């Protein structure tokens, strides 16, 4: 049962995160072709090797259906496996395990996982880009007739992510207590990591716990510096057969375990707002890999908000439920610390490129395991835990990655 570690991550590419307004505008097809060729270069492969594709379905610019066929045709690549995924920030983790599963099933050999997140050029005719910007006014909440959230959330001002995550944090505070300084350390340590990563949005801008605590309160208890900044960017990852991977450029990074869980669109309707989907997803991933949280050499944890990190640490089993604040106080999350986490800076300091936010974490895990993380390189770097989170703790996924010996 489960993945046998017969698929490997072999190369990746990503755009440097930039503010939306200053980033170049490119069609999504164009971004996909660009990112794909860069990622294949990185792996030492070409488009001719690709026979599988997974891309993001929501907000794709040039079409709202038949997306894989359009992308495959544009790339000039016949596909034995074609998929779109619609799991928000859990999409990247979800892409990787689906690619690995398709490869292990023998459906295909090499899968391109890609998420374009730069804005497309403005159109004089039917401006889809403007449409997406207008819909973002409601923060990803559907306004369509019959959508429960259009009927039960929007009229009260419940929308977007900040207030939902803040309400989860308030519930946590009421049940287990809350230490704002401990939470701020997540931001501070990740910023330290970003300051050793020239590709990061906030490279060269260290912060202190006081900076976090003095930043603007957005929705109690979440402050500005605890909230990601969505930016333009995009990423691609190449997954191929492990035996094929051994003749390529870098150390193969095997997909040893995976899990996924989706429990509700809005945390309001979750049975227990503090029981994260990452719990069952992570248990499955560790069991599949035959490993436990303590075995990991690094954790690349999806960090749209500090509260997401805290609850992932608890529910994924790095510490017990309710013990998160103590765990934060007792660990150093820098790449030099006793619990290396989000060694590229995390989305809080590297940047959150559109829905591709999660891909930055998968790419960092791959590069660390391959020994290509520059001055952030960990001494022990064989095993990585990676998580993804979509919506408002709506959907989460976990990967356990292992360097090929």
């Amino acid at each position: 049962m489960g993945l046998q570690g017969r698929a490997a991550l072999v190369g990746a590419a990503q755009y440097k995160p930039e503010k939306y307004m200053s980033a170049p505008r490119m069609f999504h097809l164009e971004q996909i072709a660009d990112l794909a060729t860069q990622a294949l270069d990185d792996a030492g492969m070409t488009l001719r090797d690709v026979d599988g594709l997974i891309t993001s379905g929501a907000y794709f610019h040039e079409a709202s259906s038949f997306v894989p066929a359009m992308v495959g045709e544009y790339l000039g690549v016949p596909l034995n496996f074609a998929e779109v995924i619609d799991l928000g920030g859990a999409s990247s983790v979800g892409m990787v395990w689906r690619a690995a599963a398709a490869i292990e099933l023998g459906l295909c050999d090499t899968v391109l996982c890609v998420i374009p997140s730069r804005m497309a050029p403005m159109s004089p005719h039917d401006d889809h880009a403007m449409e997406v910007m207008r819909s973002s006014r409601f923060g990803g909440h559907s306004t369509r007739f019959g959508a429960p959230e259009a009927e039960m959330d929007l009229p009260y001002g419940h929308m977007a992510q900040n207030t939902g995550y803040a309400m989860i944090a308030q519930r946590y505070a009421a049940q287990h207590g809350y230490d704002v300084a401990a939470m701020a350390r997540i931001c501070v340590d990740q910023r330290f990591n970003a300051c050793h990563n020239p590709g990061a949005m906030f490279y060269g801008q260290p912060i202190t716990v006081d900076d976090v605590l003095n930043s603007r309160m957005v929705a109690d208890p979440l402050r500005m510096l605890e909230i990601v900044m969505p930016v333009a960017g995009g990423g691609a990852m190449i997954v191929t057969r492990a035996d094929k991977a051994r003749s390529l450029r870098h150390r193969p990074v095997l997909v040893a375990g995976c899990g996924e869980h989706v429990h509700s669109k809005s945390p309001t309707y979750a049975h227990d707002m503090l029981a994260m989907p990452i719990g069952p997803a992570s248990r499955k991933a560790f069991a599949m890999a035959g490993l436990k949280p303590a075995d990991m050499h690094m954790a690349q944890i999806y960090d749209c908000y500090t509260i997401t990190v805290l609850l992932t640490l608890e529910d994924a089993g790095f510490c017990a439920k309710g013990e998160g604040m103590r765990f934060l106080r007792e660990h150093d999350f820098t790449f030099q610390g006793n619990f290396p986490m989000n060694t590229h800076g995390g989305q809080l300091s590297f940047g959150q490129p559109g829905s591709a936010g999660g891909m930055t974490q998968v790419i960092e895990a791959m590069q660390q395991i391959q020994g290509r993380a520059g001055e952030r390189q960990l001494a022990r770097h064989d095993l990585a835990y990676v998580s993804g989170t979509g919506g408002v703790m709506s959907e989460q996924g976990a990967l356990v990655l292992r360097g090929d010996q």
Partner: protein
Amino acid sequence: MAWNKPLPHPTSISQPYWDGLRDHEVRLQQCEHGHWLFFPRTHCPTCGSRQLIWRRVSGEGRLYTFTVGRVPTLPEFTDEMPQLLAVVELDEGVHLNTTLVGVDPADVRVGQRLRPVFDDRPGEVTLLRYTPVESAHPGVIAGEAAPAAVPAPGVEEKPKRRISCKDIAAMKSLVSEEFTGWSNAFEVTQEIINQFAALSGDDYWIHTDPERCKRESPFGTPIAHGALVQVLVSRLKMPMDYEVVDFVNIVNYGSDRLRFPAIVPSGCSIHGRCRVKSVEQLKSGVQVTLEINVHVVGQDRPSVINDLVMLYM
């Protein structure tokens, strides 16, 4: 004024719930096995049964969680700042989204008992808000009555210190990092915005055309001109505990700095506060720079920052 916030569009499935609210009752669905459910559906998400009936419930429950939103989730909600967004666990066990009314944000506690408040203001539907059981807030917010603007504390007249503009030491003692208390609140109605548009000739649609704003504006609703909010300072009485005397006239020299960091959506109330930023003796008189900040009530980010320079001669 017209309700400019998103409104629910009841469906054939949810209509009984909204009908209940219109009658000032909370009605929920229950399946044949006794499971309660919310939001409305055609099946029970607990057991799958399709035998559902609508029942009247008390609507009371406990606060499951909440947040104090300090950045409007949509510009249209700026008048509610700070937004008291909440999830209530009804006594039947279901959760629903709401906002809290009749309670100070500092007094909100997870677990506290709440009772329903039926808000008839939107007109075509009634919304369900909540208040602590012990609060004095009425159980219904009537449709016609606009919420009365709460007079800002500290506006009542106190005897003022008289400071002579000839006494430069006393004048310099007015310089402070501390702002005054808040002024009275003033409602920036669409009518005022339209009058200003006519007067100034700046009738750009983003200020004057609610329908087009709904379709095309990033704010979804008309916003006041920055220049209008700047001049409305004349409508705001700042609670100062001193007055400057002994001058022949005051010359308004303009602004050292004029910024509009945040929007004022149509229909919001504004209030202001100020502080003396600097005092300088010039040949012709005493120059005072007054930093005036105008905020939408409840918003911590100012809509206008004006460093007004005046010369007392």
